[in-house]
C-alpha cells in the first residue's frame, strides 16, 4: 500500500495510529559566556518551548532554516544534549527525567542517523566495528554473533558483506550513509531521528538513500523524525511536517495540507522561495522575504517572525501567538491565520 493510500485510508476510518513519542514544552538554552571569569551574559534560545508528537509508523518531517533549532530539538530528544526544560514521553516514561543509566537502556529503541557521512564514522575503525558498536555497548551476543549480524544488516542496507573489513574512507558518500543507517538499524529501533541524512549527498545518490529509508520503514515498521532544510526532500518522505522558525514551531500539518494551505506566513514564504525544477512555470506571486533571520540570542518580542512578516499588525510585536489546532491535525502559531486561509 502506498503512503498516500495509507494516509487516505486512515483518514476515512478516522482511526489514528497511536502516539509513539510526545515532546512537551521542550527548551534548550545555551549560555553565552564572556569575560575572564566566564560569566553568563545571556542565553541563546535554540529551542524555546516546543511541543509536538510523533505517531507510530509515520515520518514526521522537521524543516526550518539554519539556526531554527531543528538539530538541537532532535539531539535533545535523544538526550545527546541535556535539555533546559520540558519532557519527552516515550512508552509511558519521561526520557528527560530518567537517570543516565536508565536512559542508556532506551537508547537502542531511539536511534539517529547523522548528516555528515564523513564526520560521523570513526576514521580509525573498520566498518564491522562501526556497525557493531551499539551491540557491543549493549552487550548483545559475543563477537562472532555480532559480526554475523553486521553482515546481515549490511546486506539489508545494500552494502556487500565483502566490505566488512574496510575503513570508512574507502567508501563513497552514499555508501557511508548506508553504514550509518546499518549502525542505527542493527539496534532494532522503533524511532530513528534522521538529521539531514541526505543533505550532503549528490542528487542521484540522495534518491537511492531516500528509497532505502522508505523500504526499511516498511520492512521494520520504523518511525522517522526526519530533520532537513530541503523542503522537497521533506515533502517526499514525510507524512506530516513541522515547520520551525527561530526556536519555535510555527506550523504543523500533514504534508498535503501544508503545501496546499499553509497558514503561517513563514511557511508560505518558505514554500514560495523553493525553486521548482521546471522552467515553464512562471512564479508571479513569489514572496521574497526581506532581511535576515534575527539572532536567537536576542529574538524579537512577540511573534518572532513579525519583523519580516508582511501581515504583521501591532498585536504581533506585543503578543506571542500560541500554537493552536485550527483544524484537525493542523496547528499554527499566527494571529492572522484566518487571513492566510482566505488568501489561499
Amino acid at each position, binding site marked *: 500500500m502506498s503512503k498516500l493510500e495509507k494516509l487516505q485510508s486512515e483518514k476515512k476510518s478516522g482511526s489514528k495510529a497511536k502516539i509513539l513519542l510526545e515532546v512537551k514544552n521542550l527548551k534548550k538554552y545555551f549560555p553565552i559566556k564572556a569575560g575572564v571569569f566566564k560569566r553568563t551574559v545571556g542565553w541563546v534560545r535554540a529551542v524555546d518551548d516546543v511541543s509536538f508528537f510523533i505517531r507510530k509508523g509515520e515520518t514526521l518531517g522537521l524543516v526550518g532554516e539554519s539556526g531554527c533549532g531543528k538539530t538541537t530539538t532532535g539531539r535533545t530528544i535523544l538526550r545527546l544534549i541535556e535539555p533546559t526544560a520540558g519532557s519527552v514521553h516515550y512508552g509511558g516514561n519521561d526520557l528527560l527525567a530518567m537517570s543516565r543509566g536508565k536512559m542508556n537502556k532506551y*537508547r537502542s529503541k531511539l536511534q539517529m542517523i*547523522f548528516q555528515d557521512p564523513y564526520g*560521523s564514522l570513526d576514521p580509525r575503525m573498520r566498518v564491522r566495528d562501526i556497525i557493531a558498536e551499539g551491540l*557491543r555497548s549493549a552487550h548483545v551476543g559475543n563477537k562472532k554473533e555480532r559480526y554475523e549480524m553486521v553482515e546481515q544488516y549490511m546486506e539489508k542496507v545494500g552494502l556487500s558483506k565483502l566490505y566488512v573489513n574496510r575503513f570508512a574512507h574507502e567508501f563513497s558518500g552514499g555508501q557511508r550513509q548506508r553504514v550509518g543507517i546499518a549502525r542505527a538499524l542493527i539496534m532494532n529501533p522503533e524511532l530513528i531521528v534522521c538529521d539531514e541524512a541526505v543533505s550532503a549527498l549528490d542528487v542521484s545518490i540522495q534518491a537511492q538513500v531516500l528509497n532505502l529509508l522508505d523500504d526499511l520503514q516498511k520492512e521494520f515498521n520504523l518511525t522517522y523524525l526526519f530533520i532537513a532544510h530541503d523542503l522537497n526532500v521533506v515533502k517526499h518522505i514525510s507524512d506530516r511536517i513541522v515547520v520551525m522558525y527561530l526556536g519555535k514551531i510555527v506550523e504543523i500539518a500533514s504534508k498535503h495540507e501544508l503545501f496546499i494551505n499553509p497558514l503561517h506566513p513563514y511557511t508560505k514564504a518558505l514554500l514560495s522561495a523553493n525553486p521548482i525544477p521546471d522552467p515553464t512555470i512562471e512564479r508571479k506571486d513569489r514572496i521574497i522575504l526581506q532581511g535576515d533571520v534575527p539572532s536567537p540570542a536576542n529574538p524579537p518580542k512577540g511573534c518572532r517572525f513579525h519583523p519580516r512578516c508582511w501581515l504583521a499588525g501591532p498585536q504581533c510585536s506585543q503578543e506571542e501567538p500560541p500554537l493552536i489546532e485550527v483544524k484537525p491535525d493542523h496547528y499554527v502559531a499566527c494571529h492572522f491565520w484566518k487571513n492566510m486561509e482566505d488568501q489561499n
Partner: protein
Amino acid sequence: MMEGFLKILKKIAKNPTSLAGLLLVLFFVIVAIFAPIIAHPEYPDTPYQMPQSGWSSIPQPPSWQNPFGTSEGQYDIYYGIIWGTRTAFKIGIVVIGLALIIGLFVGTMAAYFGGWIDEVLMRITDIFLAFPFLVGVIVIITMLGPGLTHVMWALVLFYWMGYARLIRGSVLEVKENDYVMAGRALGTPGYKIITRHILPNAIFPIIIQVSMDMATIPLTAAALSFLGLGSPVGYADWGQLVSFSRNWIISSSGGNPFAYWYTITFPSLAIILYAMGWNLLGDALRDIFDPRMLV
C-alpha cells in the same frame, strides 16, 4: 592487511627523507639490540661501564683495539657509542613514555570534561610551564643528586606539559566530530567513548611531536651529562663522551690543532645522526598510523 602495509612502505619509499629517517632509526635500533655482540662487554654484570685501557689523560687515536680511539681517561669511544645507543633509547622511551602518560591523562580529562576540571588542570600545567625548563631540571637533579635515574625523573617532571596541552587541543577538536555523538547515541559509556573514539584519533597528530622529542630528550640528557649532572663517570653515554672531549676539541699543546678530532667527532656524529633520524621519521610515522593511507 599485508597489502596495506606494503602500500605504506611504498609511500614512504617514494619520499626519500622519510625513508632516510626510517633507515637511520632502524640502524640505531639494531645497534642497540645487538650491542653485546657488536661491542662485547668485558664484565657482563656491568655492561654500561665503558672499558678503560689505561689511566692516561691523553686520548689515543683510533687503532685496531680501539677503532674510534680512546677518550680522556682511556675509555674506549667505540664501546661508549654502541652502548650509549642503549642509553639514548632508554632515556627517550622512559622519559617520553611517562611524560606522555601524564600528558594524556591531564589533557584528556581537561578537554573531555571541560569546566572547572579544565581550569584547574590547565592552571597546574601553566605553573609547571612557568619554570625555565633547564633551570627546573637542574634544580631537581641538584636536590635529588646526580645520576641517570634522577635525570629521567627531573625531565619527566618538566616535560609532560607540552603533551598535556597538545592532547587537550587535539581532544577538543576530535570531541566535536559526529562519530563521538554517534557513539553516545548508541549508548556507549563515556570512558569507552574516550578510549575507543577520542584517544585513538587524538593521539596520532602528536606522534610527530613524540618522534621529534625522541631526538631532543637524549640531547638534553647528553647536555646534562656534559655538565656533569647525568650518568656516573665511565657510564656509556654520548653526552659523557662529548664531555670527556671538552679539553681536546682544539689541541692546546701546539702542533696540529685537530690532533684529537676523534674524541669529539664520533660521539657528535652519533648524536646528530640519531636526532636526525627521529626528526625525519616524524612524518613517516604519522602516515604509518593513519588508516587513510591504506587506500
